[in-house]
């Protein structure tokens, strides 16, 4: 190694295959200590990445699944005022100690750990537009103050932060500027073959080849509203194998278990029209 980042480059795990580009982006993010922002088609393994980075480097994982009502502060800590109120009315618990009613969120817990952790901020685009801006300081300085107690919490070990987005909202520039960005491209056949072998180690050669062919043909059909993704392909192979499907029939018209691959009604119609035309031509 001509350089000495604290860690080995991320090469994927036995259940997660990475492209060289993604592996490089992970190294850059870890070395520069910046959040890694991951975007890509649904079903390309954005969320799983954090789990596998944690597993690869043997770090703890904190998950923060963002919803439309999530506020930035929820990731740091929450103050359960209602429970405190309840306790005060019925004289339960230690009402006088406000700390009993404060619980740390995923980021807060990661800051407090003695060992480095991986924090997954999943689907950041689900939250309000201002959400990423509210996190700027915490992600830069890796510290925050609990308003209710005045206690300030600074990261003992800067966590590795992985953020995923589905592009539903534009993220603010100031936030983007601080991130390392990677777009998970749809895997090509070669990479896809490796991915399938990870999930179905003993898949029959002939079935895999036929399924790959059919799958990429299907993705190429014009006018699909939602193109089938990796995770759907994995499910489809499982279904084919379970049914003991004859691989030779895969290349003919009418794919079996199409419902595993296509999720929209219009898409069924589109594909059907296409195959009928194809049959007539041949």
């Amino acid at each position, binding site marked *: 190694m001509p350089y000495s980042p604290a860690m080995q480059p991320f090469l994927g795990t036995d259940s997660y295959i990475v492209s060289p580009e993604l592996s490089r982006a992970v190294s850059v*993010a870890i070395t520069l200590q*910046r959040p890694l922002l991951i975007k890509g088609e649904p079903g390309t393994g954005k969320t799983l990445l954090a789990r596998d980075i944690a597993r690869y480097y043997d770090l703890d994982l904190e998950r923060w699944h963002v919803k439309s009502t999530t506020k930035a502060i929820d990731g740091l800590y929450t103050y359960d005022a*209602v429970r405190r109120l309840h306790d005060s009315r019925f004289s339960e618990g230690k009402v006088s100690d406000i700390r009993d009613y404060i619980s740390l969120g995923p980021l807060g817990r990661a800051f407090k750990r003695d060992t480095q952790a991986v924090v997954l901020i999943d689907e950041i685009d689900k939250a309000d537009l201002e959400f990423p801006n509210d996190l700027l300081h915490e992600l830069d300085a890796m510290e925050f103050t609990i308003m209710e107690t005045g206690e300030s919490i600074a990261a003992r070990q800067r966590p590795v932060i992985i953020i995923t987005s589905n*592009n539903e909202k534009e993220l603010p520039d100031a936030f983007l500027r601080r991130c*390392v960005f990677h777009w998970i491209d749809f895997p090509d056949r070669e990479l896809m073959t490796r991915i399938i072998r990870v999930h179905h180690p003993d898949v029959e050669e002939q079935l895999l080849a036929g399924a790959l062919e059919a799958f990429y043909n299907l993705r190429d059909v014009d006018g699909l509203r939602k193109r089938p993704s990796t995770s759907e392909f994995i499910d489809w192979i499982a279904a084919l194998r379970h049914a003991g499907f004859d691989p030779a029939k895969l290349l003919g018209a009418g794919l079996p278990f199409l419902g595993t691959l296509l999720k929209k009604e219009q898409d069924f119609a589109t594909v059907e029209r296409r195959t009928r035309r194809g049959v007539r031509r041949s």
Partner: protein
Amino acid sequence: MFLDFFYNLRSHGLKVTTHNWLALMEALAKGLHEESLSGFYQIARCILITNEAHFDEFDRAFAESFRGVKDDRAAILDDLEEWLANPKRLLHLDPELAAALKSLDIDELRRQFQERLAQQKERHDGGNRWIGSGGTSPFGTGGHHPSGVRLGGGGGRSALAVADARRFRELRRDLVLDTRQIAAALRRLRKLTRDEGDPELDIDSTIRATARNCGDLEIVMQPPRKNAVRLLLLLDVGGSMDPHAELVSRLFSAAHQAGNFRELRSYYFHNCVYGSVYEDARFNNAVRTQELLTTLDPSWFLVIVGDAYMHPGELMMSGGDWWMDGRGPTGMTWLARLASRFPRSAWINPEPKKLWTTGTIAEIAEVYPMFNLTLEGLDAMVRHLRRPPSPARAAQVARLAQTG
């Protein structure tokens, strides 16, 4: 050569900041590119670019900057070395870049740069020189590094081949993709207010009131947050709009499904708005334009979708309703009246921008700010509608609305 790359990126419209450029330097200094051009391509892209829609431009700029590099390794190494040895060059910036940098203190910038340079020298002294042709150095050509400037990774494709392939063309933002994306763009139009609806518990105020009440529970209710935006959508159908029908219908369904507007009204017209618009695309149920002008208050947002492309006479002469009540106002006057009544208005035009400078399109663009029917255009439109209307345009539109 590397500075050229920076300029090239910027001239391709990519807003590469100095902040990120310095981060790239840091990554290079730490050897993350592993002495390969494809490594350099990968780290440059993940640090400098934050939107997959810009990958295509990045690829083009990269290819332009580094074409021929493979044949000229010595030159690239010299260039890189020279460039890094002369950080002062950054002071000779073009005006555009200089303006962009104004917010950054130039002394601070220099300090950072020199710090980084010093770091690099230390590495060099330590025997790990990071540019040069020596056997163990990055960007090297020697035997210790099988990858060398040649491209590593399992793929075996060179960074330039990757850049040249323009794989990310379909991710560009100037293409419209699907309803969901349109809906996501329109959703940003919302303005949340609380003024009607079934009240819900306001926990924060309840706690505050209860605390003030010495711990006796005091419930505070409030109306829920709701989108207060009302949108009036006028759609041009038929004739020259036929090629865009699919796109316009996607926009229409997106506005209906996911806009969550307090009120959304849509009407159809053909070519230009005259005395009437229609509730249906077959022009059966007419609604008088005057009625819209008087019944809808100016807080409504007005969005007109059309190609604004017609015979000049259709815009400037009395309109389609004159055989109903004599000579009416011209189409232009009707458009100006609408724009004047609804100051927050915009025009979405599915035709490519290069046609906008001519004929009736240019005339209408005087009255309505025009945006493309692409994601980029919709974003710009939403930004425009959220801003307060410009008084100058309002005055001009009011003048047009008077005449005719």
